[in-house]
């Protein structure tokens, strides 16, 4: 199944891309998705291992333990600094 992934701010800059699609075999958690992406090596490996990394699923703040299913929009980004 295909998952759309978006990157923002410093995560996007370090990644060098604004987003990508990945094909995965079954439902996974955010943590699981990070593992799959990290297998591709750098920059995924270091950027996604940042302990302050945040994840949103379908435009809602989520935890890395939350499940991701087909068609979900997943975003990874650093802590927010608006306002």
């Amino acid at each position: 199944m295909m998952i759309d992934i978006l990157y923002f701010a410093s995560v996007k800059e370090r990644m060098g891309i604004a987003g990508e699609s990945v094909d995965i075999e079954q439902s996974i958690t955010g943590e699981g998705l990070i593992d799959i992406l990290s297998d591709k090596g750098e920059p995924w490996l270091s950027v996604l291992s940042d302990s302050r990394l945040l994840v949103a699923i379908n435009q809602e703040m989520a935890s890395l333990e939350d499940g991701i299913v087909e068609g979900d929009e997943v975003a990874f980004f650093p802590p927010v600094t608006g306002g």
Partner: protein
Amino acid sequence: MRISIKVQTKIFDAASEANTLRSGIALTGALVEFTGFVRDVSEGSQVSAMYLEHYPGMTEKSLHNIAEQAISRWQVFGVSVIHRVGRLGPAEPIVYVAVIGEHRREAFEACEFIMDFLKKDAPFWKKEWNEKDEAQWVAAKESDESAVARW
């Protein structure tokens, strides 16, 4: 209940925003407004410009959700939030939150609540340029994380 959420590049007019919010609500006794500005100086060095990135779609949802929570929690009649994105100059306004209600105490609390959660949950990221034109992403503050604990 009135909720207005705007995410925009252009500068805003607080006075007309507040007037729109108040119009026709007879019991409005209190208006509390917060405006946040780009500081000219950040950590000792001059700020020459700022860029605000955001997550289109999620930004609006997140702000709407925060406004709804404030309205369900305090006796307030209306909330207006404007957040700017894109390139901003020093001393320019970034964010505006207005709350109207019958009593000041509730309007003050709702306004602070909205700002506290906006800083923690709304997907905006600031990048600053110093006078040597070096850019860096602004780091999140521990205090913004902990500010929501009191609610």
